[in-house]
């Protein structure tokens, strides 16, 4: 689309995550033993939580048989009502939590087996990175640029955001494959240590600013 300037290296714009500070939010048990399915409840210009909610209904049997609970945060009003209807229709426990401090969301990530993020457009998806740090297995729509952070089928599952069947297939696997989610939690934590450590990022970013400031400026107007 016409970029002429230099690209900076691909870094998380959020400034990284201090894993030591996040550690208390991470439940002690392995991911495969956790019983929460965490869904981000955005439904608006780009959020597509309603499609994910339908996928949860399609997975109702597994959810009931294995005793999972769906927790939805940041839910729009239509998602809140749809969640009540879905819980009624599928006979599955769905809890919509009110607007909560970040610590509460992080605690939920640390207690969740699966995190579902579903949107038609996103960048890195900070919630996915939080899931990465806290052991929740990401089921993430392929429209976020998560392929630069996760390996589809190994450390996350990518889905079509507007196809409930695609999301349900991924969810079914994430809810039944214990080895997948436990191994993913370890691998994701390792990636987080390498790429999200704020100290490392800080050094990189300062260096980038210094290099950029030291570069000769391009003249606004060509000389005579």
């Amino acid at each position: 689309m016409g970029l002429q300037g230099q690209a900076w290296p691909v870094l998380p714009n959020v400034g990284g995550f201090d894993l030591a500070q996040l550690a208390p939010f991470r439940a002690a048990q392995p991911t495969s033993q956790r019983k929460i399915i965490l869904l981000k409840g955005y439904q608006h210009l780009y959020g597509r939580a309603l499609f994910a909610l339908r996928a949860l209904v399609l997975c109702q049997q597994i959810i009931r048989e294995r005793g999972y609970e769906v927790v939805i945060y940041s839910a729009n009003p239509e998602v809140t009502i749809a969640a009540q209807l879905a819980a009624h229709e599928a006979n599955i426990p769905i809890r919509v939590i009110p607007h909560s401090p970040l610590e509460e969301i992080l605690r939920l990530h640390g207690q969740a087996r699966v995190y579902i993020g579903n949107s038609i457009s996103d960048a890195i998806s900070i919630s996915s990175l939080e899931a990465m740090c806290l052991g929740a297995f990401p089921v993430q729509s392929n429209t976020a640029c998560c392929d630069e952070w996760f390996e589809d089928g190994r450390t996350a599952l990518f889905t079509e955001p507007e196809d409930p069947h695609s999301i349900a297939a991924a969810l079914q696997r994430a809810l039944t494959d214990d080895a997948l989610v436990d191994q993913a939690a370890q691998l994701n934590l390792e990636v987080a240590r390498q790429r999200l450590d704020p100290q490392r990022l800080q050094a990189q970013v300062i260096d980038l600013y210094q290099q950029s400031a030291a570069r000769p400026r391009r003249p606004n107007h060509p000389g005579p």
Partner: protein
Amino acid sequence: MRILFVAMGRSPHTAGWLNLIADQGWDLHLFSSMDNGVLHPTLRNLTFHHSFYVSPPDDPPWLARGVVQRGVRVPVLPLINRWLPPRRQAAAWRKTAQVLRKGYRINQLTRLIQRLQPDLIHALEFQHAGYMTLAARERLLQQPGGHFPPWIITNWGHDIYLYGRLAEHRPRIQQILAACAYYDVECTRDLDLGRELGLRGQSWAVTLNNGGYDVQALQGFRSPAPPSQRRLIVLKGVQNVYGRALFALRALVMCRDLLQGYRVAILSADEPVATAAEVLASTHGLALEVIPPSPQEDIWRLLGQARVYIGNNLTDGASLSSLEAMLLGAFPVQSRGACTEDWLTDGQTGLRTEPEDPHSIAAALRRALTDDALVDQAAALNLAHGQAHFDRAHLRPIVVAQYQQALENSQQATRTV
């Protein structure tokens, strides 16, 4: 006969229904459940009860049509009007009344019932009119010798199919169904649901609740081309608590191989739908056009030019757009959330879909776009059905007879006592 209606005064459904009985010489009163000072322009022969209102400059035409307005009339003061127009003055008074006295409209309704002593009370719709009437009824019955007239409740759209499943609403819906003398529905589904939720009163005939259509006049909007020759798809673009247009939009993308030469007109598009349509049009080269808010006649004209109408809701009543599509030759691809089973024969006069499954919608759409015989035959059958069931001339005697019977029952009960 004196009937007090509690209903949304600006709604075309309210106006359509009331106009069915506007020429009977009955004493009709309308208490607005929304209290926004707005009357539907086609209302006739009734007294309209506001809290605060402003008579617009065209007040004489209201009177000429037999509409009398009651309430506190906000004076038109030129000095104030320069910085606060009369309509906003009235809105400010209403807001002030709400703040100073919660439930002031329920008080007004209670007093109005006491003063008018209507033969019948009819609440059109549950969540505003029904709840308000229920509260007024409770107040009146608590008074010594308290009396409440026979109550008719009409179910609109999502009233009990959606809200009956929500914990916050279910108890009040059950209270209304236990208290009303008559229950008016536009589909069998809602009649069955009403019974499940504790309906004790009688049910009225399953008829359209919007007052029906002048089917003959509507044919003026119908293109002469048979549906199979039409190259327009109309999609209702509502995406909200009950609308699911985004799922239908995805289905359209899944059928893009069939859309060469087709234009898709999206009505009532909410912002996420308009944005998604723009993105999809650019990504897939589809001719998607978001239609700005338009007069009803323009919508009918579009339906009269369409091969297929897609209505996709999680919940709905009879879905008037689907009925209008039936009358105008557009083949309905309608989600099961609407209670169209009384009007549509799945696979013959329309196709019913799962509202949150794009694959289901795409399969129906694919058939509707490829099966010429299906859509042409459906158009003929749907028009015949519409003429037999949706025409005002057909509805009027049924509705009038129901009110007369309700009054007779009430008088008989009084005599017996």
